[in-house]
């Protein structure tokens, strides 16, 4: 029993450097910046509650309240602004500027913890208030920012570390949070792959054709796709295998790099051929942070948090 407990703790609390956290912070910072910039001219239109908006934010927030009243939403910030006499448009613009600023803060590594919490909060507000206009990228941004805000920041490449001499309070949980991200990605890919395997269209290339010709993802002219028609079933089956096999082959040393390259290649291809650049970037960031080269799974010499502990960051 003790041996099992020890193994479990070794698995959950591996000795880990903070380089994966640097990748996560930089990547998510860049993601938040690009997310904000991509909505620069549509922010108020998408998230307004009054007639100026595409659909009223109030409806999405009312539905959200039926599920839970404690999930952050833009309505809270707008109500707060109204108390000090600020109009909805001004508050929404201020929220956008704040989101962009905290994205820059994350990239620079300045006030890492505050930036991560604010980025998570503001993005979550936008994603939930704009639930009808959100898609997969918002879920993955929430997931990434949630883990980033809980991870032991700052990392050694941040300005907080170098200029403000700030140090993480719990560096021993670096390995734990990375493990959580790794396991979460395995769950995501497995179920994403499994549901694809159950659809007949992924085995004969039909779904690849449909995904690439379906508006608004139809970037590549169908005339070009026709020339690749014999390759489409191979592509569909490959996606099923890569995703379903992810929880197994990403852990094996011999296949880890191959699988990571395949997954990254898949996301780059999705970004370029379907115009889902933000979605591609967030998935690449999460994968590289979780299983990236040079910050791969370290040899487990001991575990922290249990009876046996090894100084974290010892490799530095």
């Amino acid at each position: 029993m003790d041996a099992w407990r020890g193994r479990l703790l070794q698995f959950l609390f591996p000795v880990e450097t903070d380089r994966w956290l640097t990748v996560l912070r930089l990547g998510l910072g860049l993601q938040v910046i690009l997310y904000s910039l991509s909505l620069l001219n549509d922010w108020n239109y998408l998230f307004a509650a009054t007639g100026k908006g595409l659909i009223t934010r109030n409806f999405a927030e009312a539905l959200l309240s039926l599920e839970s009243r404690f999930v952050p939403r833009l309505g809270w910030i707008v109500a707060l602004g109204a108390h000090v006499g600020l109009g909805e448009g001004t508050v929404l613009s201020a929220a956008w500027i704040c989101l962009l600023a905290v994205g820059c803060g994350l990239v620079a590594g300045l006030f890492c913890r505050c930036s991560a919490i604010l980025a998570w909060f503001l993005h979550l507000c936008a994603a939930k208030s704009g639930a009808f206009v959100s898609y997969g990228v918002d879920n993955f941004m929430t997931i990434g920012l949630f883990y980033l805000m809980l991870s032991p920041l700052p990392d050694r490449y941040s300005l907080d570390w170098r200029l403000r001499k700030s140090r993480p309070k719990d560096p021993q949980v670096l390995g734990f949070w990375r493990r959580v991200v790794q396991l979460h990605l395995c769950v995501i890919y497995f179920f994403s792959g499994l549901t694809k395997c159950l659809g007949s269209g992924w085995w004969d290339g039909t779904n690849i054709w449909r995904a690439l010709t379906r508006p608004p993802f139809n970037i590549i002219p169908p005339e070009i796709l026709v020339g690749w028609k014999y390759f489409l079933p191979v592509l569909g089956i490959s996606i099923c295998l890569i995703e379903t096999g992810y929880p197994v082959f990403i852990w094996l040393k011999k296949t880890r790099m191959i699988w990571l390259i395949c997954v990254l290649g898949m996301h780059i291809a999705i970004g370029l051929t379907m115009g889902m650049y933000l979605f591609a970037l967030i998935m690449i960031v999460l994968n590289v942070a979780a299983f990236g080269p040079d910050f791969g799974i370290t040899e487990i010499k001991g575990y922290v948090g249990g009876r046996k502990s090894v100084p974290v960051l010892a490799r530095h």
Partner: protein
Amino acid sequence: MGRGQTIFPSSFDSVSQKTEKATAAAFSQHLPASNPFRQTLTTYLYLAGIETSYGYFAPNVSGSYNLVFELHYPDGRVGYEWPRVNSAAAGLRIAGLLDEIGRTHSDGFREYMVKMVASSIWHEHPEVKTMRAILGSVILPSLRDFERGKAESYEFLYAYDFSLSDESTEPAK
């Protein structure tokens, strides 16, 4: 799986539906929305971004939807408008919204959503007297059909008429 959209035989549907119910129960979905345990669990799921499933483009890739507004001006002119945004990234979000409107089985929800979009169009064209919203689905040709020269087509789904009194008529189908 419970909706018969997978490669599994239809006899598997009932098993899938039972599994779905058991999963919903595990996530406290059978409890009243005001139940503190359900509230706490739901809040955590939302905060962590794990409240939705991960079946993107699965089990199969569905078609897309189109929403066009026919604007009728007092002088008899007729114009056409549709939800517009300024960037391709925001365009992906509009596509998601149209999917939401097109896929729902609730007539009331669909009408309300269309009415909200209509009101934003009206805001940009205040001089319009009446408006007709036409929701259609885009039928994509299969690869073989495309090679034979078939192009994408549109299937009419619903139409809603709006006037300044903000009353919509029964949808035509």
